[in-house]
């Protein structure tokens, strides 16, 4: 069961990064949801106590290498994101669908703001407001992400949920 879980976590991140880096027309660029952040949020919610902080760090490092960003930038922000999610896991799980979407949107916004702030500190800033559109689209796709991953978990791992 454990290796099955590891496998599904691995593949969820592979698919998330494919979606994240898939080339899209310039106009939609700002609207690409933060797929990787959403999957990190999902696993933090589902695994709860079994969630290991090495996971967001490793995923973040891979994102940094892909992006050519400072090594550790996404790792740090994803780590903070999963920490906030774990701290508020109970409320997040209990919230209704719309409420949950709003909260996820806010979390992604915070994640992007952290990215933006750190990049700004080192002098790589991007001064257009479109940078934050992704949190809206992330909130919109969140229900589908959670439903698909729930389904995957039930089928392949038999993971029980609350």
């Amino acid at each position, binding site marked *: 069961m454990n290796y099955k879980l590891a496998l599904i976590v691995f593949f969820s991140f592979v698919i998330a990064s494919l979606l994240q880096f898939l080339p*899209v027309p310039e106009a939609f660029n700002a609207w690409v949801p933060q797929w990787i952040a959403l999957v990190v949020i999902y696993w933090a919610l589902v695994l709860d106590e079994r969630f290991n902080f090495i996971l967001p760090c490793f995923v973040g490092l891979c994102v940094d290498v892909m992006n050519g960003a400072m*090594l550790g930038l996404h790792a740090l922000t994803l780590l903070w994101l999963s920490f906030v999610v774990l701290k508020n896991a109970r409320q997040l799980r209990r919230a209704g669908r719309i409420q949950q979407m709003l909260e996820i949107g806010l979390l992604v916004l915070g994640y992007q703001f952290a990215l933006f702030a750190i990049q700004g500190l080192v002098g790589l800033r991007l001064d257009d407001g479109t940078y934050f559109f992704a949190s809206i689209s992330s909130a919109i796709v969140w229900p589908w992400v959670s439903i698909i991953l729930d389904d995957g978990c039930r089928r392949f791992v038999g993971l029980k949920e609350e």
Partner: protein
Amino acid sequence: MLFRQATGLGLRVFCLSILMIALMIADKHYKYVNNVREVLSVFLIPLQYTLNAPMQAIDWLKVSAATQHELSTENVHLKQQLLLMQVKLQQLINMQQENSELRALLKSSSRINAQFQEAKLLAMNLDPALAEVVLDKGAQDGVQPEQVVIDAAGVMGQIIGVTPFTSRLLLISDPRSGVPVQDDRSGLQAIVVGAGGNNPLSLIHVSETADIQVGDQLVTSGLGARYPEGYPVGTVTRIFKTSGEPFLNITVKPSALLERSRRVLIVSNYLDDDSKRMLYETPAKVAPQPVTISGAST
């Protein structure tokens, strides 16, 4: 019990945060962190090629779905272009000969013919704050860091990282990039730096009295020995002065299609041995040569 677990959580996150921040600082200041980056990027190569697959499929569809009529008209068009280019090339060969003779008279080092290697961009949606792209040629194909990349219209940037099968290209629109250029019309020398994203480039440290106009073509000056001499970089689109600042604000539109080019050329081996020795050896090691002034006056 809940409290205890929560403190453990915070402590772990704190320790890992410190580690990541240390990594970020190390990445900014020490070169050896690049090894970590290269090891990790080898594992990401399959991902990069998978991402490119849809684009390749579209390209393949375009070719296979084209009608014979389209192909034959394109063929005729290409043949016409080829003829034109060949005629131009004849003139160019003549001029090159003349140029090298003149350079020999002036006793300056001759320019060696650059060698080109074709590469394609791997389609990927990267962080818009960083103007970087990934090419499908890597160390296996002889690509090295610091090589310059151009497209049909002008300079695109330089290679900053190499893995066995891919390489990373820093575009001239990145804030970290600087290209030494000269004005084609007046010979004025300056540096073009990027501003990130889709923002226009800017020409820095040009004083108010400098001879520069809107529409001037900027080409690489060859100073700094990174970018080969004489390739177009951009055109001046706007010049304005902010009162109280010593330099002009000049925006430059890049010649290369930074966002759209998919086929690019990697320039290699453009310096001959003489110039390399002159550039990389300390002056003390270079044997003193007799200075002749007569050469310049001819």
